[in-house]
């Protein structure tokens, strides 16, 4: 019997497993060795180390080397940094970008808070998942296409100005809805909403509802309850949402330019330009390092202001139904805001007009036919599929291996492995892309299809690993112990007991990773050789103008990723949902 009890006991309490048991040899360790093998997470950790940290180190080294006649010279100097601080245009650009991103992120957080609060506090637990899915699915659909949807909305000829003029509210197009700063901010609020929604939602849902009751019981009116209880306890989540949104926006060099034209040249453009036609690798490296330092400083400062995280209690699932008509109205409006641009885009893809936009002349499917006959586009799609399948297969294999071991151990090794694998999730793809091209440059290796696959693998690895890990963590470890008690060896127990139950998590991870890879632009644009993926094709076409055919491609891609993500999310949460129903029903 000791053999059965010790593996879990030893694993879960960590140090307790090494307690002196002189008479009995440490059977727990021997039994669990197959699955607790510290080498299992190694491929994943190495992938991140070789694919991200090593190139990042090269990037830092480069930032201390000067560029002479377009060639990097191995000669230590801080000239690149001096150039940044003495050239007013550079640091002004950084400040300007910070300001714009901070404004857009703050707006995102403020606007998404009521919606997150509604879903977390006012929607019955059994129905929350539906709301969450509706709110975050747009986030996982193609980034570029969501930008394209807004391109249709803005400008003198854009849908907003046209509609307002049509209704007779205004006579001349409003500059607010032209291609300028406000348009950039609106687009980013739109693009980043799901991130801050999710972060805020999780924080609010964790607040013990009894705390809200307690505040009301002690005489707090609803708005005082919000200020004294809800906001302070949810503040770390709210700040996390802000940081995620901020970093996401700051690392985006495509959207501001597409929407804002020359107004949209931000710090991220400044960086990428150094690696493009300017060929100022050293200076570009310095700009990228400063970019990371600035983000790091911001996070540290915000953390210091907000303070540590209070234990707001475990998620209790407690819920009292209360009407909230204002919040319901607001949330519905937000969903309309969220879904109108893609819906309009789909509508426009059926417009027989030669120009993308209103008026709607007649119904046609000819743009779809055109898309399906476009050889360049189909070629790009094929490239995208090759990249996605390879990257996802690699990251799923490597990620599963890592998750299997990480779920079984506690302590510093676990934190280290988990931290390493998660890093790409928290840093902008811009930095990863730059690091990869600098690393390849240093080694003198040509870019190609495989660099895209490598980059996508590193990007999707944390998503797959974490989703599988969450699944495995949710399983009762005693089941494996029971299987071993019945004679199964550790790997056998894992494969026959845990894997079937974790399968939805693995599948969902794979599907979401697939969608990410299919849509990735920021990194792909940097690391590609001559290959063109679908997002790259769309971007190059977008730069000329929005055509009805582009609308049709986008509608197809939206439909595909929507289906993929919905299925993935439903598979991943199917059991949870059933369990949730059973709980609230009982």
């Amino acid at each position, binding site marked *: 019997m000791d053999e059965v009890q010790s593996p879990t006991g030893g694993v879960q309490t960590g140090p307790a497993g090494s307690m002196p048991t002189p008479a009995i040899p440490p059977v727990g360790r021997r039994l669990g060795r197959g699955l607790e093998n510290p080498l299992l997470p190694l491929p994943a950790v190495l992938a991140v180390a070789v694919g991200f940290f090593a190139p990042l180190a090269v990037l830092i080294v480069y930032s201390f080397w000067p560029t002479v006649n377009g060639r990097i010279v191995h000669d230590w100097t801080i000239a690149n940094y001096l150039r940044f601080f003495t050239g007013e245009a550079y640091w002004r650009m950084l400040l300007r970008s910070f300001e714009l991103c901070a404004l857009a992120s703050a707006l995102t957080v403020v606007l998404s808070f009521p919606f997150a609060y509604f879903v977390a506090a006012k929607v019955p637990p059994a129905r929350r998942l539906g709301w969450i899915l509706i709110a975050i699915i747009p986030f996982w659909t193609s980034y570029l296409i969501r930008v394209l949807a807004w391109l249709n909305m803005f400008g003198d000829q854009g849908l907003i100005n046209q509609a307002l003029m049509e209704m007779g509210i205004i006579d001349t197009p409003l500059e607010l809805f032209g291609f300028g700063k406000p348009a950039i901010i609106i687009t980013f609020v739109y693009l980043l909403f799901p991130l801050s929604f999710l972060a805020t939602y999780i924080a609010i849902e964790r607040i*013990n509802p*009894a*705390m809200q*009751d*307690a*505040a*009301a*019981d*002690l*005489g*707090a*009116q609803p708005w*005082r309850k919000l200020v*004294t*209880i809800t906001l*302070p*306890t949810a503040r770390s989540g709210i700040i996390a949402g802000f940081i995620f949104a901020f970093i996401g926006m700051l690392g985006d060099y495509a959207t501001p330019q597409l929407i804002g034209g020359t107004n949209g040249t931000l710090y991220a453009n400044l960086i990428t330009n150094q690696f493009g036609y300017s060929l100022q690798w050293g200076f570009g490296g310095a700009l990228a390092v400063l970019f990371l330092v600035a983000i790091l400083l911001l996070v540290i400062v915000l953390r210091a202001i907000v303070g540590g995280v*209070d*234990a*707001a*209690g475990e998620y*209790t699932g407690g819920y*009292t*139904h209360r009407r909230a008509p204002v919040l319901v109205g607001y949330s519905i409006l937000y969903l309309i805001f969220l879904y109108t641009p893609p819906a309009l885009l789909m509508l426009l893809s059926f417009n027989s007009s030669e120009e993308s936009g209103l008026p709607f002349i007649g119904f046609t499917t000819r743009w779809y036919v055109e898309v399906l006959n476009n050889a360049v586009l189909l070629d790009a799609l094929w490239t995208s599929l090759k990249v996605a399948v390879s990257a996802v297969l690699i990251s799923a294999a490597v990620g599963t291996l890592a998750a299997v071991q990480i779920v079984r151990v506690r302590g510093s090794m676990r934190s280290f492995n988990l931290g390493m694998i998660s890093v790409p999730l928290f840093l902008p793809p811009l930095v990863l892309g730059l690091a990869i091209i600098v690393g390849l440059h240093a080694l003198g290796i040509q870019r190609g299809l495989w660099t895209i696959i490598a980059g996508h693998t590193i990007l999707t690895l944390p998503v797959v690993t974490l989703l599988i890990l969450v699944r495995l963590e949710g399983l009762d470890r005693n089941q494996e112990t029971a299987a071993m008690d019945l004679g199964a060896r550790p790997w056998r127990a894992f494969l026959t007991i845990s894997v079937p139950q974790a399968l939805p998590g693995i599948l969902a991870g794979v599907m979401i990773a697939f969608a990410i890879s299919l849509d990735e632009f920021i990194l792909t644009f940097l690391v590609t050789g001559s290959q063109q993926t679908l997002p790259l094709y769309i971007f190059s076409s977008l730069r000329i103008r929005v055509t009805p055919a582009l609308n049709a491609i986008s509608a197809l891609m939206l439909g595909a990723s929507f289906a993929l993500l919905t299925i993935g999310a439903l598979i991943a949460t199917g059991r949870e949902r059933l369990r949730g129903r059973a709980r609230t029903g009982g």
Partner: protein
Amino acid sequence: MHIDQPQEMPARPALTCTDLRVRYTGQNLYAVGSPTLGVSFSVNRGELFALLGASGCGKTTTLRIIGGFAEPTTGRIEIEGVDVTRRQPYERPTNTVFQSYALFPHMRVEGNVAYGLKMDGVPGAERERRVKETLDLVGLGGMERRRISELSGGQQQRVALARALVKRPAVLLLDEPLGALDLKVRRQMQDELVRIKQSTGTTLIHVTHDQEEACAIADRIAVMKDGMIVQIDTPEALYHTPRNSYVAGFIDAGTIIRGRNSRHGSAIEVAHPDVQLRGTLPFYLTDVSAIAAMLPRNQIKVSSLNSGAQDGVRGTIERLVFTGSIFNLHVRVGTELEIRAAVTIEEAARLGEENLRPGAIVELHWRPEDIVFVEDSDAAPSNRPRAHA
């Protein structure tokens, strides 16, 4: 349904609940009340009133209605004579000690206790004085600056109590507040609650599923089942005259024996295959069709076979539980009946060790007047008089 007997009641009760019903939307089940009858009771000023019942009996829902966290489908709640049924929690003179305490983790002890006073706009100096006073009252003097995470379970419980008490509520609501504490701390807190009730004159409503706890501290207890109050009485009265077999079983006053009923006027016999119980049926049970008998644990005399006592019921000791002050005996009588009897230490000494061990055969005696007849609620689960048999 038992209607509370008005004893020497003050002019106006602290709390009156009239005809409360809660039906969840889309469900036909009543969490509180029934289609025909709502829950009604009143609590006197300065009284400690317990709502006792198994989980899911509607006791917590009833408490939440009083606190204003749930709205009753029907009914009326008056506090000090004022109708508060439609008032929000923050507009009611009630305060709650929550089951999970629901302390605010981002505030210190003093911040938690001062919170309600701040909401009322109590000025700073007065606030500080009252916070200190209340913390002293619950035995947490000097802990003002502690973080919530630094406190033990018992201390957190005291902060929750202080936070509610400091507002001097007309009615203090306690939602199983001692459930998470270990036995020793729980006993301590029970004494504390009684002491605080006496020194402050606060009216308390205490929800619990622990009959021992309810009996130990409550002035009166309402036993709830399936959303209805089965009986409201003092703890002693619940022990001596439980209304039906459910209450008798829940209070754990003795052994419930079911059997064929036969009546002659007010004389009744409950005939179990192994034992016959005869006595006089109390007037309030004359209309009840199914009657069970209860043998109170502490009314049973246990004697050894050679004691010379007559007319006893013979049985074998199956189990012997020493609780510190008494022995609880499980005595097997016949094939399927197990009678429980309490034996004091003195009686145990008289019986002798050789007679007080598992397997020993003893004789049990009781007086007919000690038998408690109750309605058999398992035979009539709806708790309503059946059509005439």
